[in-house]
């Protein structure tokens, strides 16, 4: 087989492959993916307590996990959960009764995320949250769980792809928990795997 003939065949193949790829969908490239992201970072509770306000510790570590379906366009749809300790307080008469209480939360949110420009995303979500309340020192130690129905999340993130599957980045997120009218924000380092 002559060299010219081989080159011609290769060129024809490349050309037809390019045209075929472009015509296959109305989008540039088929990008239907799933991703799982884990975030860890600093969480701060915006202190709106009235009882024991000045005695509250409002900084802690927080963790989040998100599973996204990423179709070929800018939007992604996903589920988010995590764990945040909102605050820990001492009772107003702590010197007498040594009472302490803390509130933690596990959100369960349906989230929508939009790519604004390359690697930069905004997202919002709504859903449920489990509020976990612990008391100690004043009588027996108790843990109570309460379901909060109206909860929201607003966030911005920068996610950079290291490889075809692995991504890293950062996220700033604000959350609201309707049951207790609590607000918090968190800044997290994020690591994601994309399938």
């Amino acid at each position, binding site marked *: 087989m002559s060299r010219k003939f081989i080159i011609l065949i290769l060129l024809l193949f490349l050309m037809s492959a390019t045209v075929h790829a472009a015509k296959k969908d109305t989008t540039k490239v088929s990008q239907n993916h799933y991703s799982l992201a884990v975030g860890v970072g600093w969480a701060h509770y915006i202190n709106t307590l009235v*009882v024991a306000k000045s005695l509250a510790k409002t900084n802690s570590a927080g963790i989040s996990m998100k599973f996204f379906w990423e179709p070929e366009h800018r939007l992604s749809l996903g589920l988010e959960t995590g764990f945040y300790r909102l605050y820990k307080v001492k009772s107003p008469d702590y010197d007498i009764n040594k009472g302490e209480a803390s509130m933690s939360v596990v959100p369960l949110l349906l989230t929508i995320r939009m790519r604004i420009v390359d690697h930069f995303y905004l997202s*919002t979500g709504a859903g449920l949250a489990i509020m976990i309340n612990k008391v100690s020192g004043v009588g027996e130690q108790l843990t*109570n*769980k309460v379901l909060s129905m109206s909860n929201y999340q607003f966030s911005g993130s920068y996610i950079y792809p290291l490889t075809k599957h692995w991504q890293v980045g950062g996220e700033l997120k604000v959350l609201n928990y309707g049951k207790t009218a609590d607000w918090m924000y968190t800044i997290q380092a994020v690591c994601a795997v994309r399938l």
Partner: protein
Amino acid sequence: MKIKITYFALLFLVFYGCNKDTTVPIPMAGPNSILGDTYPLTSSAKLLMDGVYKVNDGSGLFGSQVILKWNRTHLSIACNNGKYFVMDVGRLDSVIFLQGYWRDGYSDGTGLASMHIARGEGGTMIVSGTGQQTIVIRGAYGQGSTLPDQVLNLTRLRSFSTKAAASKFYILAHRSGGRTSDRLPVSENSLAMIGFTERLGSTGIEVDVRITKDGIPFLYHDGDLNIRLTEKGPLAGPAENYTWAQLSAFVRLIHGEKIPTLEEALTYTIDSTLLNFVYLDMKETSGAMATVTSIQERMLQHAAAKGRDIIIVVGIPTTGALNDLKSVPGYQSIPSLCELTVDDVRAVNSMVWAPRWTLGLQNDLVQQMHDEGRLALCWTIDQPNWIEEYITQGHFNGLLTNFPYVVAYYHYTQQ
């Protein structure tokens, strides 16, 4: 794009923050009020002021007719449309001065009110207790905290009818005075509300009773600790999951009060008010009836020792509560209020039958209860037209309401 989303997210936060009001502020007359220089009225003088009055000026807001009724601390004026006044009163020679505020119970309207009764228009008669004069109250009202500038004049038409004055009709205030959503300056189910409620025209109260994990009965309505009833604090979930010490340490009601125990609430009611009916609405009865009825008995003995004529009844809202009461030894002699059927009333020998108002007037069953020496109330009735019907056409001994001033109006204007 990003800016737009951020803007609307912030708008969302603002909108969330716009519903946080829990009080309509009571407008105050200020430190230069003339009442500082006046003398209080005697009990007999106060009785002369009670009555039905015609509204000459101000009827657009307050209706054509109002009732004036003294309570333990203040003079209350009740209208037929949900508006009411709470007035401080004092005299200087034979002139009587009234200063206070008006409030719309169905919305947030409020304002200052300032009036007087001139010497020749009833002042002399009220102070001296002699003579015949038609009482005319002249003054003005305002909006919000602005000085009164709208004319308000009242003329006394008559005393309360014998039917209205003589009957022992119980005007029961729901949750001891009203709900958080009624935007009163004190919290529901609190000692502060028990002390406040008579100004609204109440002669009795309904309170909600729960029990802590360590067996202390306390007053609280909702199933869990929440920001509707309490200041934001670190506890959440069912109040019954916590001990009394924990609730005391970490929970304050929406206006800063501590949650009262049942014993504290009843002691305060007997010692510090003239309320004559307390309905203990049992939110949880399993295992609680014996404890609550024991406190009830002790408080009735305390009231008797003080010469107080007061009814304290434990509520039976469900068949479960009925069975819980039956498990208490001597239950047939425990004063109780049964919300179920008249047969259930008889089964536990309840003092009071209290059906919900939507079941109708049921005059025949009410008469049966009266024939058996029992009382009959109904709950919780809030619409002015229904309150009027139930008072004028019904035979109940009282009504439970979130708007005791409306019930007071229709009760005292009966002829």
